């Protein structure tokens, strides 16, 4: 094994170990944060739903300001909303 190969191996090993440690210690945190963001997104989309459908519920000025932020999330939001769920979903 050359010096360069050794260095690469150590680098890869260090990177893998770092990711493994993150997976054990911090990945759950990230998932909880994503779930919280997902719940917020539901509310956010609900607020602007009227304008998405063409029915002004909020004063249009505010919802029109919000719409550009909502539109990119619609496809992933739709997947979440339409997916069949059961209790075992709560475990992960």
């Amino acid at each position, binding site marked *: 094994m050359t010096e360069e190969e050794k260095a690469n191996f150590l680098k890869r090993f260090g990177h893998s170990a770092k*990711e493994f440690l993150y*997976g054990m210690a911090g*990945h*759950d*945190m990230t998932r909880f944060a994503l779930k*919280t963001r997902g719940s917020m997104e539901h509310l956010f989309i609900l607020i602007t739903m009227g304008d998405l459908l063409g029915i002004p519920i909020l004063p249009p000025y505010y919802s029109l300001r919000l719409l550009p932020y909502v539109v990119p999330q619609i496809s*992933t939001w739709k997947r979440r909303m339409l997916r*069949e769920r059961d209790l075992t979903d709560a475990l*992960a």
Partner: protein
Amino acid sequence: MNALVILIIAAVGVYLGYGLYAKKIDKDIIQPSPDKATPATMYMDGVDFTPASKNVLFGYQFKSIAALGPIGGPIVAAQYGWLPGLLWIIFGTFFIGWVQDYASIIVPMRSEGDTFGALSYKLISPRARGILLVFIYLYLLLIMGAFGQVIGINFLSNPGVPVGVLAVILMGLLAGQMTYKMKQDILLTTAITVVVAFIGIWVGTLSGVTGFFEGFNASLGANTKYFWALIFAVICYLGAVLPIWRWAQPTNYVSFWIIALGMAGGVIGMIIWTFQGGATFGDFPAFTGWSVAGLGPLWPILFVTIACGAVSGWHSLVSSSGTARQIEKEVDALPIGGGAMWMEMILAVIALLTATAATGGWDAYLEAYAGGKFGVFAVGLANFLSHIGIPTAFGIPYGMVFLTIMGLTICYLVVRFMRVASAELLGDAIPALKNMHVGAIVALVLSLIVIWTGVWQTIWVLFGGANQMMASLALLIITVWLMSQGKKYGWTFWPFVFMYITTIAALVYTAFWKALPAVLAGTKVTGNIIAVVVAVILILCALVLGYDGVLAINRYRKGEVAPTAE
């Protein structure tokens, strides 16, 4: 016999099981393709379906499957001698454990991320899903009973433990505040909270503090177990109803470091001790007999006493609902699912070593076991840690705090899930159960009844039985799925048959040979009646699911349903 020889045997098991058998199954039967889209990439929603790297998921999977189970089971099963437990841990993982974990990732991954509830509905029968959920609720109740007795009655009532546990929880709250409210750097947060938590554990071992709790427990007298179990319930209640970021999740984060550092120190200490000529089994017998008083006959009880560490149904839930939806490439399923299971097997072997090599002999093991079940692990860990310079006077309470917080991290999740389950199952009939506080309190009251009235070894065997039954049902679903795809299924079908028969036998034995005679003899009547009722419900659920499963298998065998090409 010494610790190093056992570790070498385990390593050979890993090489043969993972390196040869698992890789062959993966290559010849499942044939994963790195180019095939997985649900994580196809249905990415930024929340549940999100691709993650192989190493991250390996850590996540291991952390999710390894809790008190792989530690507790081998310690209890050491009553049969060290050999039966060791053989079951290695061969159980070899033929069943990794098979279940790996396939529990593969099947949902190839079924658009469906959970086992949905899969049982589609593959077995419509009623299978409902029965599975009743089954899971009782299984969770048994987890609370088994862990709750150890934590609430054995550990928290130990004078050296409460301050340490309080310190870890307080530091968890601080970690949450620093991370989410004060937006502090995670390294700084980790350093401060973990160091202060360790100082808290040390303060808890000072004679002034332990003296105070000794006096306090003495003043409670016979009510000590009720008081500390109630404290356990209050902690679980807060963990289950407060926002996750506020309590459960940052507490788990700080706990992780306390546990990881303890495990790392223990393993290093064990290796040093072995090279010094220690860590031998002394007079610890390899085999004590075909039946053990208090536990029962080797078959079927050993196979449910050691659940996690050999095979566990919990893993199938974690793998299917969590990991399967985050896999980026199909080829990652084996290193993640199979790899994490083999690593847990090593953890179970280390737990067995804390009961055998670390205690140094049979009498020392029995003495530590009489002092409080998993207390054996705390004593063993302290003995290992003493070889890296950590005094035993600190090591034993540290081991107990370690186990307590390890159990609590699971119990938060269990109560949270029980309240969701009760709201789903009974929410329409009893609308009050939809309220999260009511749901959590109902779950905790049921748990406390089991904790206060139950016989621990009976609860543990029932918990193991429910756990293993979950595993066998997961294997049944996997077998039917393999048949539906026209693939070879012997590698999951025979493990299913073995686990199914063994687990039903264990539940029948526990209900009718242990708990029922105890009721008739007037011993711990309430607890034993609960044990009989729970066991009978579990058996009935398992029989109905087994019947539906056999019908489903026959449908595919007779060609009534054509296999689906992938």
